[in-house]
């Protein structure tokens, strides 16, 4: 967790403080105005809350690799050059049938003889 809340707190406090000094320096408010002490506090709180509630972005998506389905397009590829993966190549190969337990292996159908 990056300390965004700390940056928000410090920035918000100084934002409010500088705003107070500007207001009093431009004689918008008198020196005894409670707004002068409220603004830094409000900035501090809003900075923390704003940083903590900032929308969370998603991790960047990987760029999809698009490969042509027609392998014949790669006929011009020089020998030894890497071949881009295709769906068929990227898919895992099917597991070979296991014959360890022959009882579970279905017996091949025998051709029915003419018993009649």
């Amino acid at each position, binding site marked *: 967790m*990056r300390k*965004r*809340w700390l*940056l*928000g707190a*410090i*920035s*918000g*406090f*100084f*934002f409010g*403080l*500088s*705003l107070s*000094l*500007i207001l*009093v*320096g*431009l*004689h918008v*408010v*008198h*020196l*005894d*105005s*409670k*707004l*002068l*002490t409220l603004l830094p506090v409000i900035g501090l709180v809003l*900075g923390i809350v*704003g*940083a903590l509630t*900032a*929308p*969370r*972005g*998603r*991790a960047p998506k990987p760029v999809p690799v698009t490969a042509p389905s027609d392998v014949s397009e790669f006929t011009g590829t020089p020998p030894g050059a890497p071949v881009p993966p295709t769906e068929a190549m990227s898919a895992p190969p099917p597991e070979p049938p296991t014959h360890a337990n022959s009882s579970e292996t279905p017996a091949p159908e025998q051709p029915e003889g003419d018993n009649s």
Partner: protein
Amino acid sequence: MRPLRLGAAVLFALAIPLLAAAPAQAKLTGPCQASGTLNGKTYDPAIINNATITRKGVVHWEGSIPGAGKRAISGSVHVKLPWPIPDYTIGSWGKQSDTYSNSGQYHYDLPSELEGIDFPVYGSHAEPGKVCAGFVIVRLEGGGLKNPMVIGSFVVLVISGVGLWVAFKPKGV
């Protein structure tokens, strides 16, 4: 008896003296009278409550209150600051006094960072049967966008604004 004791009338006239200008509804109550002269101009707190003065100068003040005999007095002149900062007291007086009028000079020299700021100055005096209270807004000449404090504040405002933008930026992007 020290002259400042009687202050009553006087000191809170001190606030006034710093004045210079705009007539408005005065904020002065009680039987006290006071006036101040700054740069050849005399100000009466009974008729003004807002003044613009130079950053430094000498105020010739005088004040009085009707009466006779020795009595207990108390009072002060102070600048109100934003809560929770305590008030700044310019002067105060108290104890026993048999003085009912006084005059003097008040030298002041304020930093340029305070130019353009409105200072609310309050004064009060109390003695048996008499209470005076005064209020005036004193503004130092100049200031505005030329005030170093304001310029610095704008710089800090921009820097902290960038900090807020970074803090509020969506995470993970």
